């Protein structure tokens, strides 16, 4: 039996007493490349942020390989939405990637040669080594997203959470990113992606979770990615052509 990488029990999250996630139960098996899909305001980002302890749920619990997140930080990497940071911040691409090493360093300790080397390797993996000294505002949207991916790669985690990594990136970058994600899965990592483009779900992912405040369904794409679940999630008669 495959191990459960992430387990969410009875999770309820509210903003100002208005629930945005209601009683979510979710088990994500190790080694899947999973899309979280659902309409705007379905709580997709909220789910990830609650699992990572960035938001405090009003009920329920989360475990990573059977233990609370606080004890398993080293196993988890997170790619926030690109728009969540100020790209005019005075720093370089390399420096942003180095931030991925801060977690393993802990408080006060500074990154050294070892961390720098790891960051350069991650930059190379996403094809951004040539831009390492570029100020981050001078990168294109796709390049910025690659930097964010490199920052997650440098954490060398077991589970990767990504919040809309394909938003506002060009086609070349999208392909480059999905190839890296597929490589991660091949290496036995678990990758969880908030995703918007339903057309590409069967092509990119092998596991999917339908979410709209409540969990609609979760499981292998080939079994549950169908018009029935799409309609339940998006509330209208939803039809996509699914390549089986």
């Amino acid at each position, binding site marked *: 039996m495959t191990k459960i990488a992430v387990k969410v029990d009875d999770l309820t999250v509210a903003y100002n007493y208005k629930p945005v996630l209601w009683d979510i139960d979710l088990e994500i098996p190790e080694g899947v490349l999973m899309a979280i899909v659902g309409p705007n305001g379905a709580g997709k980002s909220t789910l990830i942020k609650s699992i990572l302890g*960035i938001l405090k749920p009003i009920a329920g619990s989360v475990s990573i390989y059977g233990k609370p997140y606080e004890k398993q*930080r080293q196993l988890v990497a*997170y790619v*926030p939405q690109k728009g969540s940071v100020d790209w005019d911040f005075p720093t*370089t691409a390399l420096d942003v990637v180095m931030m991925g090493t801060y*977690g393993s360093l802990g408080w*006060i300790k500074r990154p050294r040669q070892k961390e720098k080397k790891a960051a350069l390797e991650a930059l190379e993996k996403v094809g951004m080594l040539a831009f390492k000294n570029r100020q981050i505002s001078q990168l*294109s*949207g796709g390049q910025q997203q690659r930097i964010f991916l490199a920052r997650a790669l440098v954490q060398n985690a077991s589970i990767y959470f990504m919040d809309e990594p394909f938003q506002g990136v*060009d086609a070349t970058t999208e392909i480059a990113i999905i190839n890296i994600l597929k490589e991660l899965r091949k290496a036995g990592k678990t990758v969880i992606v908030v995703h918007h483009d339903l057309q590409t779900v069967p092509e990119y992912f092998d596991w999917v979770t339908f979410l709209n405040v409540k969990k609609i369904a979760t499981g292998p794409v080939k079994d549950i990615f169908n018009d029935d679940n799409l309609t339940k999630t998006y509330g209208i008669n939803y039809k996509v052509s699914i390549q089986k």
Partner: protein
Amino acid sequence: MNSAQIEIQLIASLVAIACAIPGTFLVLRKMAMISDAISHSILPGIVIGFFITQDLNSPILILFAAFTGIITVVLVEYIQKTGLVKEDTAIGLVFPALFSIGVILIAKNANDVHLDVDAVLLGELAFAPFDRLLISGIDVGPKALWIIGVILLITISLLFAFFKELKISTFDAGLAASLGFSPAIIHYGLMSVASVTTVGAFDAVGAILVVALMITPAATAYLLTTDLKKMLALAITFGVLSAISGYWFAHWLDASIAGSITTMLGLLFLIVYLFAPSKGVIAVMYREKQQRIEVSLLTFLLHLKNHNELEERHVNHLREHINWQKVRAKTVLELALKNNMIMVDNNIVSLTEKGDTFTSKAIDYIITNEDAQIEDMKDDFFLFRG
């Protein structure tokens, strides 16, 4: 220079450094106005601390005042969180309320002491050397110098210890939280340092200059660099430069030192704002002009590439056809000629081999790199220009 003059400049410089450090992070966190709020709302803290200690330079008084600074931040955040008003409104509600409590407390109970509203707002650096610190009867220097010196030492130690944490939580609070660096702890840590620094600097330079010293050097530095460490170093340099030049400006004018330092800060910002190499107003205007010409050049070359008909490539026709003014058409034509990208034969313009390759390459570049701006092509343009 006599010793009092040196002491005043030293105090002003240390205050400038102590303010520039938290100020840099406040500017990057888009929280410049919170320093204004803190500088005003610590007043009741100072007054209450003074009632208890009866000593304007007591460390307890500084702690009291810093505590009111933190209360300000908490109140602002609390009001903002209700979602009923925006952050700037919340700031505007909180600090006048706290400040006015301080003003009333002074008026009612502290009329006979040095604490008066003028001194609070503007400070009086000129008197700082008269208030000496005596240790077992020996004069070790002005009290203000020691207070700000200690605060600066603490600030610098904290900066060195938590530089990485400050950077990550300022740039990406979500990532910081997921990695276990509580953004709340760092936020309130920074607010505490800003509050303590404000109190320490306040007696010497007053509430208004404290804000100027926190925000202006950082804002000036922000225009000049894309590196956080350099931004800190530049902010400190600008602060000290303004402190010293401001002192001599005041000396020359026989005016308020605090006012003169603030004037210098403003002048420095203005100069950088105009002349900064890449973000300055003039640089931006120049770049936009260059870009306009380069885009025009490319449009022109593309037109030549797309049209083989002679009438489309006649010099006079081009001008009407692409709908450019005479001057612009002439500039572009000359630029293209100068770079051997076109040749003119009997008033018929055609692309040279070089021009043809360049146009294909440039178009290729724009198409394959969708979101790269035209600016990214500058290397190419300058390269071809020779």
